[in-house]
Every structure is written in C-alpha cells, then in structure tokens.
C-alpha cells in the first residue's frame, strides 16, 4: 500500500441477484461457503450463477490522504454496493480493499436513534455505534450539540424533533468522529440551505486536517464545493476517474442518453400532419458538432416533415440539463414568426450566440404547434444532446468561474472613498 493512500481498491467484483427466491437460496449457499472455507472460482466470468450479474466489475481506485472524491453515476451503477464493500459490510467476490485508519460512515443519518430517549442519550448511543468511547464522546459532546444548533431541545425525546433537527443531530454526531476516512451516501441533500453550507464548510475543514472523504451523490451541482475529483460508475464499471468538471459532464451526458432513450419510446407513434424529424447541434458553419465551449456559437438545425399543410406553424424549444431541468425556453412566436408549412421537408435554424452555459451536458425538448395552442402536432424530448467541455480560451484567462450552470456577464468596480 502506497505511503499516502488511505484507501486502495483493487479489482473488486461483487455479484448481485435480483430474483428473490434465488437470492435467498444463494444466501444459504454463501453462508455455507463461508463456513466450509470453499473458495470462489478463479475467474469472475465463471463465478456467476443463474440470475446473477456483477453490480461492481473490476473496480480499482486509490484515495490519498486529505482528498475528497465524489462517486457519481446513474441509479444502479454500483456506487452504493462499492461503498458497502469499502465499509466492510459485505465482502468482495474478487479483489481486495485496503484501508488505513478509522472509517466513519454517514450512510443514513441517525441510524439507531431511539425516538423515546432524549437527544442527549441518543448522541451517546449513536456515537458508540459509530465507534467512539465514552470519554471521546464527553470531549466532543458540546461541539456536537452546538453544531446541530439544538440548544436545550437536546434534553427532549427525539420523537418531538422535526426531521430537519434529527438530520442535523445525525450529521453532527458523525461529523465529529475524527475518522481517517469518511464515507457518505446521499446525506448532504438534507437540511436547510444554511445548514448545508455549514456542512460543506465542515467537510472542507476535515480534508484540510487530512481526512479523506468518499461522497456518493446525485446532486452533482454541489460536488465542486467539497470534492476535487470524481469517479464515475456506469453499470458496475468505473468509466472515468479524474477531473471534476470532465467527470460531471460525462455523467450528465450518460443521464441525457438515458432520458433520450426513454423519450424515443414515447415519440415514435407520431402519425400526425407534421413531425419533427431531425434535430442536431452544429457550429456556425453548419458542421455537426456536439462538444462546445462556453462563449462559442451554437446552432440547432431542425428538420420538420409535413404530410399536410400546417398554416401558421409555431415551434417551441426548451433547453435543459439532466440535473437542473429546464434552463431556458424560446419559441418562434417570440420573434413574431409564424410559418405556413406546405407538405414536404422544412429546415429551421436556431442560433445561440456566445453560449453562456458552463461545463455539463444539455439537451433540447421541441414541440410543433399549429395556429392555436391546442393545435398540437408533435413533440420530441431530449434531442440535440450536446456537451460544454470548458470555457473559451479568452475568458478562461480572465478568471471566469467554471462551476455553476451559466455565465452571467458582470463587471467589477472599486468605489472611491
């Protein structure tokens, strides 16, 4: 194990079975195997039984001291299984995990809270479950209560607490564990915004002190606040490990692809007068292009085929990102344009000068209407997917931020006096 690594994951494979009855029987077999000491087949591919698949496939990564890494990926990608293996809850089927030092886990806040007992009693129980000794708890008890902002309420039974108060107390206990490696699964999307900011701040302090953090989350928007690196999971595989911005944009692209697949299933049954046939993004010269930089020009080319004439047609467009939903909308009527479409193929061009979007993946939803709003012809969801992979060279130098969704033009002034 390397000097400064707190965690090393080496070629970890983990099987999973979705069929209930089979999983139960395999459970009996696995317990038997543990008792008899029978080893797995030598090769992962041969070790699968009927109905099983690998939830984690050949995963390897390291975590150095004091680094915060985000594990992201679509649902069912294997992130939580990976966390369970790292946390020692389940054993890998192949490969190994090496951890140096104490592990703290925030998987579900306040696990083990007893609603009847007071907050104070629960702090001691919860901290003991998480591995603290009595005198260690005594030492940080006041900090825990302060951090959770509970005051005198701490002496009331937990069941009188609001869910926010419970979560705050749970986080506060776990945050004061002083682990060497902190594992967190989707726990930051809770609490009010003020408390969340405080959590981020606290996590940053922890990493400065040398604590390493693994963060599983779907709220990728908040990752840049704490993490400096991401590992992207997709169907059990690690498909990316490295730079935050690149990883997030890859993840969003995967999400858009999923949305696109789902949308395609919805929109095939269009036998109406007109249909949106093609949608693609291209550069200012009309060349198809899907990777853009902030500040570049993006054109959306739309092909509409009409079987019958549509008088005074309108096109509505919305621009979305998989994580933030709709960013903006536009429509032909905004420019007072209406088109009388004859049968045949028609091409339209929608131009975005000086694209203000920051790193991430994006897509369009388009609808075709006739004269009235209820005169609906066709809708295409999640089309024209594109990525923003970085800022344009000029503005990068000027110190423009890369986190967030959009760049808003701004100007700084120092006021005299």
């Amino acid at each position, binding site marked *: 194990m390397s*000097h400064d690594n707190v965690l090393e994951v080496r070629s970890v494979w983990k099987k999973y079975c979705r069929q209930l009855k089979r999983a139960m029987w395999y459970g009996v077999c696995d317990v038997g195997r543990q008792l008899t000491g029978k080893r797995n087949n030598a090769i992962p591919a041969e070790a699968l039984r009927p109905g099983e698949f690998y939830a984690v496939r050949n995963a390897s990564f390291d975590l150095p001291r004091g680094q915060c890494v985000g594990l992201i990926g679509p649902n069912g990608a294997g992130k939580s299984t990976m966390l369970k293996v790292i946390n020692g809850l389940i054993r890998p089927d192949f490969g190994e995990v090496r*951890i*140096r030092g104490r592990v703290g886990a925030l998987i579900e806040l306040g696990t083990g809270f007893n609603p009847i007992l007071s907050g104070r009693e629960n702090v001691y129980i919860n901290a003991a*479950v998480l591995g603290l000794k009595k005198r260690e708890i005594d030492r940080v008890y006041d900090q825990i209560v302060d951090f959770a902002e509970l005051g005198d309420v701490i002496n009331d039974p937990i069941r009188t607490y609001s869910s926010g108060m419970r979560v705050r107390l749970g986080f506060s206990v776990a945050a004061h564990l002083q682990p060497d490696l902190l594992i967190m699964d989707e726990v930051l999307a809770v609490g009010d915004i003020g408390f969340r900011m405080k959590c981020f701040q606290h996590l940053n302090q922890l990493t400065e002190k040398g604590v390493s953090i693994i963060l599983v989350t779907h709220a990728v928007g908040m990752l840049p606040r704490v993490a400096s690196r991401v590992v992207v999971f997709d169907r059990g595989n690690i498909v990316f490990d490295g730079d935050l911005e690149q990883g997030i944009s890859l993840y969003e692209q995967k999400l858009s692809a999923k949305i696109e697949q789902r949308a395609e299933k919805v929109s095939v049954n269009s036998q109406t007068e007109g249909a949106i046939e093609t949608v693609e993004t291209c550069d200012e010269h009309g060349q198809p292009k899907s990777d853009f930089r902030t500040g570049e020009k993006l054109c959306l080319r739309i092909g509409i085929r009409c079987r019958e004439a549509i008088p005074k047609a309108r096109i509505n467009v919305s621009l979305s990102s998989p994580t933030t939903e709709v960013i903006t909308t536009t429509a032909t009527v905004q420019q007072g344009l209406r088109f009388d479409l004859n049968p045949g193929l028609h091409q339209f061009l929608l131009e975005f000068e000086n694209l203000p979007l920051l790193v991430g993946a994006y897509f369009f939803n388009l609808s075709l209407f006739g004269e009235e709003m209820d005169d609906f012809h066709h809708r295409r969801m999640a089309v024209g997917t594109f990525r923003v992979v970085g800022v344009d060279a000029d503005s990068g130098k000027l110190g423009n931020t890369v986190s967030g969704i959009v760049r808003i033009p701004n100007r700084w002034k120092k006021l005299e006096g």
Partner: protein
Amino acid sequence: MSNPRTESSVTAELPAGWPALGLPETVYDAEPEIAHPLRLLGNVFRSAWEGRELAWRLFVRNVRGMYRQTALGLLWIFLPPLANTAIWVFLRAQRVLDFDFPSGVHPTVYILTGMILWQAFIDALQMPLNTLNQNRSMISKLNFPREALLAEGLGDVLFNTLVRLLLLLPALFIYGANWSWAALLAPLVALLMVLFATGLGLLLMPIGSLYQDVSRFLSVGLPFWMILTPIIYAPPTGFPGNLLNWLNPASPLLMCARDLLLLGNCGNPAALWYGLVAIPLFLFGLVVYRLALPALIERMTS
C-alpha cells in the same frame, strides 16, 4: 512504496507506509475467514471486547425505552411466566388436568420455576434472530462490533430472568422447599442453559434471516415444545417417555437447574453432556454469526 507486496496474500506484512502513519490497516477480500480458525476466534473475541461499551449503552437504551413506553413497566417482564403458571395451577385445581408432581415440592413452585426457566430458554433461542431483525437498518448500513448486539440481547435475557426469579422468593416463602447447598449450583446450570439455547439460536439465525419459515415454525412449534418439556408435570420415567428427557434439547439443563434449586438433586443425568456442549456450541454460534453476516447483509433490503 519501494518494497514489493504480494497481491495474493492477505497476511502481507505491514507495508512501508504503516509505521509512518501509525494507523492500523484493514483488508477486505474474498478469502474465507475460516481459513485461519484461530485468528477468526481471536477476531470474535476482540470484536466482542471492542463492543462492550456499545453493548452496555444498547442494553440501557432498551430498558429505559421500555419503561418510558409502558404504563406497567417491569410488570411486563413478570407477566408471561406468571400468567402461564396461573393457568396450569388453575386447571390443576379444577382437576381438569391431573398430572403427577415430584414429592417434596409444592406444584405451584414447581411449575413457576419451570416456567421461568422455559421462558429464559426460548427467549435465548429466539434472541439472535430477533436481534438481527430489530437492528436490520443498523446492521446493513453501519460497521460496528456486531457481537455487541448479541451481548445486549443476552443481557436482556439474563436481566429478565433475574427479575422473574424475584417471583420465586414469595412463592418459596409461602409454599416452602427442600433447601440444600446444591441449590447454589442452579444459577450456573441456568446460565449454561441460556448459552446452549443462544448457541442453537445462532445456528438458526442465518437461515431464519433468509427464510421467514423459521420464525413461523417457531411460533407454531413452541407451545408444543413446552408441553413436551417436563414443566407442568414430573419427568416421565417409563419407556419411551423417558427418551424425551434426553432428546428434547430444552429438557436436561432446565430440569437440572430446577431440581437443583427445589429438590437438591441433578434431575437429569443428560444435563452433564448438554452442559459440556453448551459453551463450545455457543462459541461455534458466535463464529457462524460473524461469518454469515456479510452474506446476509447482501440480501437485506433496508
């Protein structure tokens, strides 16, 4: 960094960075833990030791939680053996049932003692599975010394049994018994009985956690099992009834503890063998518990 390490070996010597940071290293891999039985047993004991404080907290939590949620509090501990005893004593008084009882002890004391011990036996037997089910969310999400949960459960069983034994004081005072110094051995035998039952329960736990059939079977079977155990009647002496004294795993230690206390004799020679098996069985159960948990957690939904 400079020293090569063997990929396959779990027991790889401490890597170069270890002394620098002074932190213990943990390895999780696919190697079955049972491959090194001595180390495995050592891990069980170490884990139990590390979890002692947690076990105590959980035990206190349970007791406090129960008192705060009930109006009758302690009474609920007394109730099951008391109600059971009352029914059988009543049926006997009505001459609905006319079983034999050993001479030298009042039937009410005899039944009550047997009931308290029986309750301890089945509480201990069901404890591992109940503990696992009650703490599912904790077990499947957090890594902590799991032996603490068993220690807490065992503590509950013993605490309840001790509290129930208080019932015996007035009963013995009213009805009297044949005291002898042998009675001092009774608590030890009762403890062995609880360990034996816990050991059995630990072996049932893995299958019981996967298949609900086990707990259903227990809830159907326990009343019959009680009838087959000599609690409300004197142990059968003729063949084939006396076979039960040997084959019914609940009988020997229960009979021995009760007869030591009330009659001053061992009650059932089979108790010796069961007593010898009790502690190894319990330890084996602990090993099974530890080895089975990861495979069970994989299948837990919550």
